[in-house]
């Protein structure tokens, strides 16, 4: 009886979200799926639908020249960037967590990206070239890298170097989340470990990392989704242009967006699996 009442409270607390989910996610999703099965025309009298089945989906894979190409690039970028961003964020958060002089000043500076990195400001900065490192010559890096890696990989890594500012900038939110959780780790744990003779390195692997593991997962997911939905993303732009193109239209764009969502879900699933596996290993 008591359990029942408690679960009632659970439903009560999440009910606002549940209602919102039904209205603003499930219903539009259904409609969007319906759209993707049709050829849509926007006419002065309203929307015109012509049922085409799964042809739109086939067209995305078979007839669009850019989609597969962009998708491969995107997946490669994601695989490289997400870990880099998360690791950078963790390192920076740990640096900020150290007792240093001018800690407040450093934190103020380091949280700046949270303020600026979302929105069109970053677009402006990118287009004005404020985010590339002027000191680093990309050609040199690529020529060094090609000695070790195949060309396609070398190019991606080279871009990674070139966009190091952007990458650091994208890690603002993650730094904050990490920092908040680092502060929450009980200091007594470290003291106990120190007394037992553990080095800082060991403390990091045995105490810090396991305590913040759920947060690492959150940061991975956040980074992935942020990159996937950012306006810098070429696939998003591709979907956008298709939406308003005369020959393709919204039905085709919906199908493309759906395929894109499936790919993202697969990537997320991989992240979750990686984290779960580690958990069983530890136990």
């Amino acid at each position: 009886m008591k359990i029942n009442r408690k679960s009632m409270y659970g439903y009560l607390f999440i009910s606002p979200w549940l209602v919102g989910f039904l209205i603003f996610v499930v219903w539009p999703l259904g409609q969007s799926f319906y759209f993707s099965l049709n050829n849509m025309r926007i006419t002065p009298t309203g929307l015109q639908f012509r049922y085409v089945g799964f042809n739109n989906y086939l067209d995305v894979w078979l007839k669009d020249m850019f989609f597969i190409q962009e998708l491969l690039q995107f997946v490669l970028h994601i695989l490289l960037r997400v870990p880099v961003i998360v690791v950078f964020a963790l390192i920076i958060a740990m640096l900020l967590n150290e007792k240093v002089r001018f800690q407040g000043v450093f934190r103020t500076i380091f949280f700046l990206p949270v303020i600026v990195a979302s929105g069109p400001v970053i677009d402006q900065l990118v287009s004005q070239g404020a985010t590339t490192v002027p000191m680093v010559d990309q050609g040199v890096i690529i020529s060094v890298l090609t000695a070790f890696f195949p060309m396609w990989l070398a190019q991606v890594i080279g871009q990674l170097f070139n966009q190091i500012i952007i990458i650091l900038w994208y890690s603002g939110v993650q730094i904050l989340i990490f920092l908040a959780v680092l502060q929450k780790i009980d200091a007594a744990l470290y003291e106990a470990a120190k007394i037992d003779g553990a080095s800082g390195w060991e403390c990091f692997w045995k105490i810090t990392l396991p305590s913040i593991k759920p947060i690492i997962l959150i940061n991975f997911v956040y980074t992935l989704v942020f990159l996937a939905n950012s306006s810098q993303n070429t696939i998003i732009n591709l979907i956008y242009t298709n939406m308003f193109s005369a020959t393709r239209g919204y039905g085709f764009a919906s199908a493309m967006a759906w395929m894109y969502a499936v790919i993202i879900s697969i990537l997320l699933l991989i992240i979750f699996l990686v984290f779960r596996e580690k958990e069983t290993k530890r136990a």
Partner: protein
Amino acid sequence: MAVPKTREFYKLLRSDTMTRKEKTRITKAKLSRFLFGFNDRRGFVLKVTIYTLLLCIGFVYLYPILYMFITSMQSLEDLLNSSVNWIPSTLYTDNYSKAYSVMNIKDSLMGSLLIATVPTIFQVIVASIVGFGFARYNFRFKKLFFALMIFSFIVPPQILMMPTYRLFSNLELTGSLNAFIVPAALGQGLNSTIFILIFYQFFKQTPQSLYEAAEVDGANQFTCFFRIAIPMAVPAFIIAFLFSFVWYWNETYLTTLYLTSRSNELTTILLQLQQFERTYEAMYPVTENSPNRINEGIKMAGTFISILPLLIVYFFLQRYFVESVDRTGIAGE
């Protein structure tokens, strides 16, 4: 023999009571303590590394803002003159006065503030409630709902764009603040999932025994929420508020969709920034040889104006913000 304190150490070095071998041994030990630290004292090497890293990364964060600021202060001659790189030759504020008039600051600032504050309040409150529900209770389909919540975050907004827009115009929400308030109040605002997750984590980490003790003392679930959970989660509230504010402020995708499609007075600074070039050309028509052509400096001035309020808010809030990050450490104990 133990390593002596610094003052005694110098005395020992000067005195003749020790052999040379002893002296080198002590010096070595002293040096290694200085460089690598011992116990809780950090060594010199580690300190230098930490500060160097902090300074370098700090520069990376400041660089684009400095660049933006300095470009915005440069006149056309300075921009074209390749010898002027960082320090403008004169104090030039024309870019700002132009950008100010182009962006229609008075109205757009009000609009931006409205759009950033009101939905944020709804969003934060609802996110804390939902996060508490997920963290505290077990119920059927909880995992499913949780997965669905994460799913709603990863769906590309482009899938939902057109159906949502039709829904909103059927409900007559477009063109007003309601287009943002209603989703936020139903837990579907901007990045709501992240906020729910943050609150979920915070409430999860609150010791469950606290709630149990309160229940034994006869508190009902709402008392638990208001008297235990919320006071424990003050840092989460501050973080969520700042984030939500910033994200709503910087939002252009939805504001374009819901506000510009209908003619009305509600506009935001970032919408003005988006139409910056067009508005500029309308206000200062380009004629032959006119000095009015838009340039980087003016664009950067506009961009700088658009983030200036955020910087100011951040400048005042950051103390609480940074402190709140600190305070979480206390709450965790």
